[in-house]
Each structure stands twice: as C-alpha cells, then as structure tokens.
C-alpha cells in the first residue's frame, strides 16, 4: 500500500480548473471526464469517453497546433498507464505549452476498483522524469494542489495528485464525440465548413 491518497477528486479538479479562461482541457476516459464536467462544462473541454491511453497524445496534437495557448490533460492513473509510451513521445516532441495532471487513486475505478500499478509498484512522476520531462511533481494535500494550479498553466509539467479511491456519483458530460469536436473547434474560432 504505497499509495495512500486522501484528496477528494472533485475538489482537486475544481481547484485545478478554477477560472479556466481559455485553457484547452483534454480529459481521459472515466472519472476525470466526470470531474472536469462537474467543475464546469465548457466548449474548450474535450472529454474522452473511450480511446483509453490516448488523452496525453490528444493533448500533444492540440498543443502543437495551438502553440500560443495552454493545454492541460487531466486523466487518471489507469488511462495514463495505458499510454505510458506517450510520455516518451511528448518529452521528445518538447511541447512547452502542454501539462498533464494525473488524478491517481491507484485504482481502476470504472471497473470495480481493482488495484492499478500505481498501488503496486509504479511511480508515474518518476516514469515521466525518466522519459525526459524536466518538471514533475506529486501533490498529496490541497495546499500542494493549489501550488500546482499556476504551474500547470505555465510549465511543461507532469503532475501526479494522490486522490482518495472513494467513488463519487457520476457527473456525465456530453458523450457525442462529433458534438464535442464541433463545439471545441468553433470555440477556438476554427472555420467549420
């Protein structure tokens, strides 16, 4: 039991996403999508309901396409574990405007709270550092979460936030991908043909 997270996930998401401005947000499937929606649904949130392991790479493609804007990927430990190679890809690509925050409950919460690798042996922040991320952090209390908030909007930061494995009522964002895609691009002012 190396992971003893106690933070309440909705409070963490609300803190990280407070006053989002024009922050571009990509969320990994499962509870992080619910958490971001509960913090306030907005057109510049792009929620993944599938494509497990892809959240960080969606963030990279977006960050490369919009170099003058900040991109935040909010995902969970299971989703990040499936896309662990993308930590190497993103570090190699060197996108200065992309940050990742992992809500780490050390569980596969969506499927019955089976223990994940972060409960057993894996430290995702150390993985990111080994992949070449120069800024990594781990937060275990709300003061540390508050300190992460500005950094996630300024640095190419990979942050792990230890949250409680308690399951909360689902807060479901829209799940029509075509709608999410269309409203995101319109909000960015991209001409939609």
């Amino acid at each position, binding site marked *: 039991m190396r992971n003893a997270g106690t933070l309440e996930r909705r409070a963490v998401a609300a803190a990280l996403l407070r006053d989002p401005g024009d922050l571009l947000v990509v969320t990994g499937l499962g509870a992080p999508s619910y958490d971001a929606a509960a913090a306030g649904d907005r057109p510049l949130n792009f929620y993944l309901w*599938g494509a497990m392991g892809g959240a960080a790479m969606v963030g990279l493609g977006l960050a*490369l396409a*919009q170099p003058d804007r900040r991109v935040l990927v909010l995902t969970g430990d299971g989703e990040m574990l499936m896309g662990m190679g993308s930590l190497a890809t993103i570090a190699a690509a060197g996108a200065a405007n992309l940050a990742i925050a992992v809500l780490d409950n050390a569980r596969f919460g969506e499927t019955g709270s089976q223990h994940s690798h972060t409960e057993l042996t894996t430290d995702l922040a150390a993985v990111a550092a080994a992949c070449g991320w120069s800024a990594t952090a781990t937060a275990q209390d709300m003061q540390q979460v508050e300190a992460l908030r500005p950094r996630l909007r300024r640095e190419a930061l990979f942050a792990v936030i230890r949250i409680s494995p308690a399951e909360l009522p689902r807060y479901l964002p829209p799940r029509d991908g*075509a709608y999410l*895609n269309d409203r995101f691009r319109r909000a960015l002012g*991209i001409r939609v043909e």
Partner: protein
Amino acid sequence: MSQSAWQAQVYAELKQAHISQVSYVPDAGHAPLIEAAQADPAMRAVVLTTEEEGIALAAGAWLGGQRAVLLMQSSGVGNCINMLSLPANCRMPFLALVTMRGEWAEFNPWQVPMGAATPAVLTAVGVHVRRADRPDEAAEVVAASAALAFDSAVSVAVLFSQRLIGAKVFAK
C-alpha cells in the same frame, strides 16, 4: 520511376493537402517521407513509441485546426484498432500511409499474419482502404485519399504495397 521520385511526389501531395503534423513509427519504406518532414520547417515530425499514439495526435491536431498524417507499417495496424474509435466517434478526418509487409517476397514469417489481415481489420473498424501498387499511381492515390479523409471527415488508410516499396533484403 525511382523510389525517391514517387515518394517526393507523395510528400508534395501531403503538403498540397495542408498537412502540418507527420507522426511515425519508423519504417524503411517511409524513410524518405520521414526525412522530408524532418527537413521541412513548416512540418512537425513526431516520432511515436506505438502507432495508436498517432491517431490520438491527429485528433488533437484536428481540434486545434491542423491536419496530420500517420506513417506506419502494416505490423502496426493491429495496435491501432480501438484508437480508431476516436476519429469515428468524433467525426474527424484521419489519414494513414501504411507500408505493407508480409505480402510480396517476404523473408520474415512474423510479418505475414498482420500483413495478410491488414485490409480486413481496417475495413472492419470502418477505415476506408486504398492501395497503391505502382510508382506512377502512388501520389494520385494519396491525393485522393487525403481529399476523402479531410473533406468527408472519415478515416482513410493508403496501403503502399510491398511490391511498390521493394521487399526488405536480409543479408544471410
């Protein structure tokens, strides 16, 4: 037509289609395209650890107003299948150029199962599959496939046949 000549034409069609992100898992058959992308200041070349990363990258690029292409070999197609639900659900374009292995004078038997399954599994998950067998048609097939993908917002894979690429020679 030489190898480098038709691949230069293919690269020109990617530029013509306003593609600005090229992701790849290296393949000898794609080497000229990868080198062209790396040398082009208007193109972003992104090396991947596994092919499905390129599908997610392309989705992010599209959300941000750019177009991407994924370069891979047929052995990587199997890695991509679930991630292809991303462009399908989001009605986003997706374009991949796939060099074929396991179908023409293949020396390595480990390439054969995925090579043989490639058109069927791509079709099964909803990707439109096109194929270039001759150097003089490759650029045209890529241009038409890019137009199909980006104008009609569907996923398209162009298979470059192993006969076109040239079977890999293993020194014995």
